[in-house]
């Protein structure tokens, strides 16, 4: 089992970050995310919480040994469930891989919460674990590769979202500045 976590903040208010969540892709920093689909969504009429279930399609080259051992292709799919709760100003995203899930799981949790009126804290954790049915050496190798890939993508995701938030706030500034 590998564990990953990072915390930082975006220089944008919580509401703008949460609006930005739906505009993150496509993104030149995350060219590996090629499709995004909403497969389920509900707006709770009592609590106002919005639950969204999406499938993200990714294209990223896997090392030859992964393809040989586990089959599969460049296409990988992820299930992501998010909750946006305006009452508590909390947004969470939980993701898990659908592809290769019989061999390994990568659970990711993201939390967006206000750090102040103009800043938003981003908390990300991930657990990466190969299933026990694999030989130890193979499962270690698979875990290490997944961790490496996750860490690379996490850094790219930060760059990607920073750009999106900047351009969203830029276009809003322009709109509000125009007469």
């Amino acid at each position, binding site marked *: 089992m590998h564990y990953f976590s990072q915390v930082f903040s975006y220089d944008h208010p919580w509401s703008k970050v949460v609006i930005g969540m739906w505009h993150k892709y*496509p993104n030149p920093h995350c060219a590996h995310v090629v*499709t995004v689909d909403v497969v389920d969504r509900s*707006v709770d009429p009592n609590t*106002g919480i919005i639950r969204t279930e999406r*499938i993200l*399609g990714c294209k990223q080259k896997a090392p030859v040994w992964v393809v040989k051992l586990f089959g599969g292709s460049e296409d990988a799919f992820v299930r992501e469930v998010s909750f946006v709760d305006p009452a508590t100003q*909390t947004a*969470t995203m939980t993701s898990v891989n*659908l592809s290769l899930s019989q061999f390994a799981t990568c659970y990711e949790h993201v939390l967006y919460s206000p750090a102040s009126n103009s800043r938003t804290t981003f908390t990300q954790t991930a657990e990466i674990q190969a299933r026990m049915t694999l030989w130890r050496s193979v499962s270690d190798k698979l875990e290490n590769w997944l961790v490496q890939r996750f860490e690379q993508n996490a850094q790219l995701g930060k760059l990607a979202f920073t750009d999106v938030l900047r351009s969203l706030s830029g276009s809003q500034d322009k709109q509000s500045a125009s007469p």
Partner: protein
Amino acid sequence: MAHSLSPECTPLKHEYDSCFNAWFEGYLEPALSASAASEERRAYSKRKAEEYENTCGKIWVKYRDCVQKAVKDRGLDDLLNQARQENPLKEPPPPPMKEATS
């Protein structure tokens, strides 16, 4: 806007995403300031949930039907159902435990 899994669903997806985003942006700011009285919040949530259904409900059903078929055609429905069984995520996850930060 990102593409759909299936090219034939992409136009429906874009129409739906635009509808949702417009609704969401109008929903969010007042929802934040309504946080005081719970009755007020409930009334607002109820009204907005209905508004979402009325404005985006039709295009959502079209897009959902299209994407459900695409998910099935690609054999992702079994994987999705398995993930849903393992972790339904019907409720927001509990706040993360505060860890001792080094």
